[in-house]
């Protein structure tokens, strides 16, 4: 090893082996328990309807697109960057693909690749605004989402756009293998790839480092700006993939797809960030998403199709409680924005009473 410190210093205490690091806490697996509770509860209430193969198929096939969208949001969040434009990126992809099938004769594969590449470019523009113009990511991507919705309105003329698709493309979106929808397989492949990058590679390490302490990351030689930029390109590309999946499954574009999908995706990522490794992570996101999806499905079955208000209510409460739990534990938002806000709140004290007393946070020097 390094000659620098070759003769070992006396250790003050032998380090313990890994294994009993953290006590196995219930809250780290709360999404799994919640899932079980939903299955048991609605299973008991709606025995015939709920615990059936078709319920599972419905939830998993309907959920795959949103789950992929959640994974898109997850990537920049690891670097403490928010990308709220993913919903509109997804619906822009949908309208573009539909429109191109009507007005060109390009094969659907080429169209899909073009759409995804174009959306990656949109992500690069968001990245430019966030990194180079130093606009807060929430604001930059919120603005970007309005711009993208303008594109959609222009292309669709505010009408439904129903493209012509080959039967192969429809099968790609609706087929199953051994009862498992193809869409879920795509989801698993994307999730696996992201998990590998985030948890196994040096790049993933650096992304979390940038999210945890950006200035320290920069000083440690990490290209923090480039990483944030890249994470926004990735999120746009994945959101666009979710759009391709949606088109394959459902087909036609209708207005207001994006915003409806954005919310459950955010809820899943924030809830998932309180799970497993207790920072934004891939499997936690998926588990949290499907736990909530089963809850929504159970509610719908319980109260009938007329209770369209049940889903947003449930999602809203879930998001607030998940973020509440996670941020009170410091699991998410440990970086920039929320810290800045906390600092701001603290600093109000002495400024409000300038001559009254010293800043309690002042260092006791001299």
């Amino acid at each position, binding site marked *: 090893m390094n000659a620098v410190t070759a003769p070992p210093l006396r250790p003050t205490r032998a*380090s313990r082996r890994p294994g009993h690091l953290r006590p196995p806490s219930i809250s780290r697996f709360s999404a799994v328990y919640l899932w079980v509770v939903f299955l048991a509860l609605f299973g008991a209430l709606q025995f015939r309807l709920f615990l059936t193969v078709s319920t599972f198929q419905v939830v998993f096939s309907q959920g795959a697109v949103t789950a992929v969208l959640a994974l898109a949001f997850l990537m920049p969040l690891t670097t403490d960057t928010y990308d709220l434009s993913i919903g509109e990126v997804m619906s822009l992809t949908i309208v573009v693909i539909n429109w191109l099938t009507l007005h060109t004769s390009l094969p659907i594969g080429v169209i899909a690749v073009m759409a995804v590449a174009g959306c990656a470019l949109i992500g690069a523009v968001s990245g430019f605004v966030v990194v180079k113009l130093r606009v807060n990511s929430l604001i930059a991507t919120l603005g970007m989402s309005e711009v993208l919705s303008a594109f959609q309105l222009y292309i669709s003329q505010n009408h439904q756009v129903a493209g012509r698709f080959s039967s192969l493309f429809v099968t790609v979106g609706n087929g199953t293998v051994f009862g498992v929808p193809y869409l879920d397989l795509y989801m698993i492949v994307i999730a696996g790839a992201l998990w*590998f990058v985030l948890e196994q590679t040096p790049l993933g390490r650096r992304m979390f480092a940038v999210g945890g302490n950006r200035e320290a990351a920069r000083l*440690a*030689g990490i*290209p923090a700006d480039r990483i944030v930029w890249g994470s926004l390109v990735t999120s746009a590309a994945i959101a666009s993939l979710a759009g391709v999946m949606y088109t394959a499954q459902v087909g036609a574009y209708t207005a207001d797809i994006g915003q409806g999908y954005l919310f459950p995706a955010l809820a899943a990522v924030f809830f998932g960030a309180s799970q497993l490794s207790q920072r934004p992570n891939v499997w936690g996101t998926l588990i949290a998403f499907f736990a909530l999806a089963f809850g929504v499905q159970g509610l719908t079955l319980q109260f009938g199709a007329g209770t369209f208000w049940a889903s947003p209510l449930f999602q809203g409460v879930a998001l607030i409680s998940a973020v509440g739990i996670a941020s009170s534990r410091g699991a998410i938002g440990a970086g920039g924005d929320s810290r800045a806000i906390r600092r701001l709140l603290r600093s109000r004290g002495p400024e409000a009473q300038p001559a009254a007393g010293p800043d309690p946070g002042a260092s006791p020097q001299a």
Partner: protein
Amino acid sequence: MTLQLRHVTKSFGEQTALRDVDLTVDYGEVHALVGQNGSGKSTLIKLLSGYHQPAPGAEAELDGRSFQLGSTHAARAAGLRFVHQDLALVLQLSILDNMMLGRSYPLGLGGRIRWREAADRASGYLRRVGVDADVRSPVGSLSMSERAAVAIARALSDTGHGRLLIVLDEPTAALPAGDVDRLLESIGRLRADGHGVLLVSHHLGEVLGIADRITVLRDGRVAASLPCAGVDQRRLTELIVGHSALAPDTGARQPAARVDADEHAVLRVRRLAGGRVRELDFAVRAGEIVGVAGITGSGRESLAPLLTGGLPHCGEIEAARSVLAPGRPRGVVAAGVAAVPGERARLGVFPNLGVRANMTISQPERHRRWGRIVRGAERDEVEMWIGRLGIVTQGPDAPMPTLSGGNQQKVLVARALRTRPKVLVLDDPTQGIDVGARAQIHEVIERCAADGIAILLVSTDSDELARLSDRVLILAGGRLARTLERGPGLTAKSIDASQLDLTAGPAFAAAAARSEGTEGEA
């Protein structure tokens, strides 16, 4: 007699910060409070402002009326006003809004703010401290001395009293040299208006230039309280440090030629400027530990950020034969310069990662196979460092916030050393950590030097500098003011004394020249 403090004692646990301190400040006088770090100055100010409570038996009166020490409200009601070092200004707000923070604006019909009246009042107070600026302009557009003056004007405007006792805590520490004179003028105006001023400062030149009386605190006691006339800088330094400890000056300002001629230098710095550093030349040889000392504002605090890319620099930094680009930490790391940053929590620690990831973050590629980090190999290396540096942790994957400050610091030291650096830059490496961890880190530093790493040790801890350094560079006014070589003359006391004794730049000289019996240039 205006402000009178008698028998003020304060202890924190076992440690006594102040012992039976008496202090008297008159209206129409500038009274300076000086002393080394840890002498009790801050504690005394915090007692006055009501942040700390004194031990029973302390008496305080202002204008003949006794008031309770340790109460913010009582201090304010008695007529004490404070301007703290950070000034507590909101840079985005206007001067007027800053002066009205936490106060009520004059209101007109229907609760409308009478802006004109508020502005007239505010500019009146501003003129009294010698600033003529539009009160609607944002504080961020002002120079540092004008900002300090705004803070003083705000303290003045918060009245109800005819005459006030204004406490200024290190008001010049953050000022560029040229601004100091203007602020001292403002302080002079306060005195002329009949207010009393208690001035806390490290800059002896400035103290001697403006103060009427000086009280010296040493180890929590009043070492001396004497009129300013008849004291010179050397005598004052002796009073602060405790005895005559000025080391012989071994050649101030190394000529650049010698720096260039030094064949073995690994780190070479030429005409470095940036932050508070104005112009600096030095070189560090392989295996050498060079200490850097200086009071706040001397450039000491900017040096490590400049060298490691935290701040953009001008001039040339050459490390291990490559020239560093300004403000690019990546290039610095690649050139073989490793750093342990000051302000551990803000600039070093990743709270969301474990010990292992925190330690290897600069070069996680070392244990990479097929694109992924091989956990077992990485864990083994981290375990080795944990053993080597005696890091007390539950294991290599324990969350970073579960470690004590000293152990977090050791993780950062390991992060720097595992990159096998040729140059190691340490910024206050043992600040705020326990004695055991401090001794271990010192041992590591010495071992690194023995292995041929060039080490730059920037520190506020004079004991540490005296113990480890081959020579100590004393900075003042952003320049190298003196070099203390290893030998019997290099002691913590001599380092302290040199920092205090050195006044640099024409501004300080001008301030010093105002008082008779002061050395012109140290």
